[in-house]
């Protein structure tokens, strides 16, 4: 056994061990460089795993050498390798900004624990993505969720604690629903290993417990995924959490929900059962479209830009949900691509908010007046990532929209394609409102001291924005991996 063979275990173990060490180091001055190193090592491991999966097919890792089915197995295929790269990459890019960000946006008494909790959230999300055991998935889900509630509560606004409490209530209900679903599936199969469960479930498709299991997991994952109308926890949580937390969760938390849904629907229960017997497309497509329209329209009326971005996320989650519901190859590819691409854009946009809040203390419409001249690089990033949110060619948003629309047409769902385009046009309105304030109104008097945010905040913003364009032009990686992932999940083109 060489170190390379242990990469799947290290993927989760490095941040999980890093978290308490951060707490021992105490002061952010010491802990921060350590946390940055942990995040980048984790990212490097994720890239190595993706490269190995693309070169040699899925990796099966048995935890502690216990044979699969008895012990916990980690299985890495192109789908979760991509999710691992997204989650750890976001952590690696955002972590350097934390040093300055926590001084402004985290309540004083929680600062020394911020990095610890952030690494726990990272470890939990990576664990969800990498594990091949359904109960292990639940445990990691709760690790990441509990850390998420704590991170949201660290915001300086007192409403952050209320938002965190509501997030905790809804998140726990969601996770417990997944636990019920897992229990019902275990009851019928006697196994917790995803691969083993999939083969055994195939023979029990017409039993009520198995059908109830998928229903419970659909609702539970739907709450984590913030599918309309189960999105209620998200707007407040993203508005009052520290912006860097919003950037990380906006890019990853709902994506993990999407991953759980895709994994259970396609890998564990199988597309035939999910679509032919359970007709989940009748749930996912209408709710996804309702969320896409509702989220976009509500976003237009928001004064706080972080709340606007949160409602925009409701809309984007709707696209992903609808795409999962198409049940065809292009739809699944669109869902996987959009999970990745939307992570990049929302991460970039929330980092812009972090930069603005660092200088101005808030992110309402009024504080963006005339900002195009005072923070040109930051606003340039907002415009580029905003165009990507709309779906303009040469950005990642366009690639997503292209597959979302072609997938809908291939599935014979013309009205769906129309709704997606219409919802994107509404995105033009809410992005334009900010552009108009930033570039076409005079700055308020007396704000001459406002300048660009420091480099440690600005650099991550620029990097993510640049990636929005790089992956919009060089689509080979995302589309290629998503195509392979769809193939492994048994959905042929």
């Amino acid at each position, binding site marked *: 056994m060489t170190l390379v063979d242990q990469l799947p275990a290290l993927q989760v173990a490095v941040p999980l061990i890093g978290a308490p060490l951060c707490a021992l180091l105490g002061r952010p001055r010491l802990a921060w460089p350590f946390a940055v190193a942990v995040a980048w090592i984790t990212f490097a491991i994720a890239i190595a795993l993706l490269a190995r999966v693309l070169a040699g097919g899925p990796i099966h890792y048995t935890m502690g050498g216990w044979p699969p089915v008895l012990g916990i197995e980690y299985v890495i295929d192109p789908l979760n390798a991509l999710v691992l790269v997204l989650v750890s990459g976001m952590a690696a890019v955002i972590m350097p900004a934390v040093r300055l960000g926590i001084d402004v946006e985290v309540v004083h008494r929680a600062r020394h624990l911020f990095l610890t909790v952030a690494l726990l959230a990272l470890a939990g999300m990576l664990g969800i993505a990498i594990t091949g055991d359904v109960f292990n998935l639940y445990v990691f889900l*709760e690790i990441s969720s509990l850390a998420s509630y704590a991170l949201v*509560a660290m915001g300086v606004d007192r409403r952050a604690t209320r938002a965190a*409490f509501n997030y*905790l209530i809804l998140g726990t*209900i969601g996770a*417990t629903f997944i*636990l*019920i679903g897992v*229990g019902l599936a275990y009851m019928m199969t006697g196994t917790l290993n995803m691969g083993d469960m999939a083969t055994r479930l195939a023979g029990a498709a017409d039993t009520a417990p198995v059908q109830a299991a998928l229903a419970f997991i659909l609702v539970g994952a739907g709450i984590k995924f913030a599918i309309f109308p189960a999105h209620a926890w998200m707007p407040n949580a993203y508005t009052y959490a520290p912006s860097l937390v919003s950037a990380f969760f906006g890019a990853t938390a709902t994506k993990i929900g999407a991953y759980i849904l895709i994994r259970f629907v396609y890998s564990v229960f199988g597309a035939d059962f999910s679509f032919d017997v359970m007709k989940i497309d009748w749930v996912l497509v209408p709710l996804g479209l309702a969320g896409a329209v509702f989220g976009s329209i509500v976003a237009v009326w928001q004064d706080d830009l972080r709340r606007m971005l949160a409602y925009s996320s409701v809309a984007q989650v709707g696209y992903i949900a609808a795409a999962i519901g198409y049940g065809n190859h292009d739809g699944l590819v669109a869902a996987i691509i959009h999970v990745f691409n939307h992570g990049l854009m929302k991460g970039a946009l929330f980092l812009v908010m972090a930069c603005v809040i660092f200088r101005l203390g808030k992110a309402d419409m009024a504080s963006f007046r005339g900002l195009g001249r005072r923070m040109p690089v930051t606003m340039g990033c907002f415009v580029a990532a905003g165009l990507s949110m709309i779906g303009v060619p040469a950005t990642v948003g366009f690639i997503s929209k292209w597959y979302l629309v072609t997938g809908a047409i291939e599935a014979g769902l013309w009205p769906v394609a129309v709704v997606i385009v219409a919802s994107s046009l509404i995105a033009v309105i809410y992005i334009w409102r900010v552009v108009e304030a930033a570039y076409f109104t005079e700055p308020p008097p007396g704000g001459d001291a406002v300048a660009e945010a420091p480099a440690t905040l600005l650099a991550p913003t620029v990097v993510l924005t640049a990636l929005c364009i790089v992956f919009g032009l060089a689509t080979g990686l995302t589309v290629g991996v998503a195509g392979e992932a769809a193939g492994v999940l048994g959905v042929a083109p």
Partner: protein
Amino acid sequence: MDILAAVDAHAVQWGAIVLLMIGLYIVMTRHNLIKKVVGLNIFQTAVFLFYISVAWVREGTAPIVDEDAELYSNPLPHVLILTAIVVSVATMALALALIVRIRESYGSIEEDEMARVDESGRR
């Protein structure tokens, strides 16, 4: 009589479902945060009960190796639920800690009063 027979055969599962509904109902209808947490706890405990009921094997004994025993209950759900109980305790601890913070900054743990504080703060 059919209903009674069905209830009798799955009494524990029916009990779990009733508890599940009671818990969810409390979470959704109460405006006091402590009561919400109590409801959430009942809801989670109902799921634990359901798991344990699944583990039971007719005529089976406790899963401890014994020469006389031929049939054992399934120990795996018990172990799973031990983990889930730990998770539940952590959730309760975090929820109560959040309530303490909310009480400090709002002076109340009633949702409508908190909403009123937020409204007046905005003006």
